[in-house]
């Protein structure tokens, strides 16, 4: 698939500035996202290549603007919906509910 993940030879992204003593996780929400990978792998919902391909299908703008674990989250959503575990409607309903809690 020819999408934005295939960046070999591209220029214009600016310098790479690694953080000193970089934390493993930058936000609390990233921890369960990391854990999801192993749960879904053990449960047979994903393998590494299915997961990578789902990240390739995020959409090019989302891919460039999203953080590392946002890519993971997006891939899990795609694969759980495609696999029939959850529906987009269920995810949207939960998002609306959580937004309500925040207000």
């Amino acid at each position: 698939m020819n999408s934005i993940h295939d960046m070999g030879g591209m220029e214009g992204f600016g310098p790479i500035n690694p953080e000193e003593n970089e934390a493993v996780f930058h936000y609390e929400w990233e921890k369960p996202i990391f854990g999801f990978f192993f749960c879904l792998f053990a449960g047979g919902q994903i393998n590494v290549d299915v997961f990578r391909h789902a990240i390739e299908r995020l959409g090019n703008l989302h891919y460039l603007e999203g953080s590392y674990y946002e890519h993971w989250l997006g891939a899990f959503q795609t694969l759980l919906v495609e696999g029939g575990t959850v529906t987009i409607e269920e995810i949207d309903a939960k998002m609306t509910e959580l937004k309500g809690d925040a207000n």
Partner: protein
Amino acid sequence: MAVLTPEIVPGLVAGGASARVVDADLPAKFNVGDTVQMKNTNPSTHTRLARYVRGKTGVVNMHHGVFHFNDVIAHHGQGHQNCYSVKFTMLELWGEGYSATDYVYIDMFDDYMDKVS
């Protein structure tokens, strides 16, 4: 269904799982030293054949063995192929102005290439 237990998590996190197929009876299609050309292909499915190397010519530098073939595993299929380290000059990959004596080594599957000589 497999179950994820606390005991197997540290090993998975530390090392992942190998994609090598140790019991495959699959002869190598190419030999070390063969000149090979990568296919020019643009599948809408998953591939590890990066755009910048499609159509380019290199030399087989090493035979890694047989590995699960990502291009089909990514679509819930089953398959395995020989994997090789292929040596490309910077000149071949990037063209005029780039070195003919600096190299990039890229891992390639059987299906990604054809023998030139």
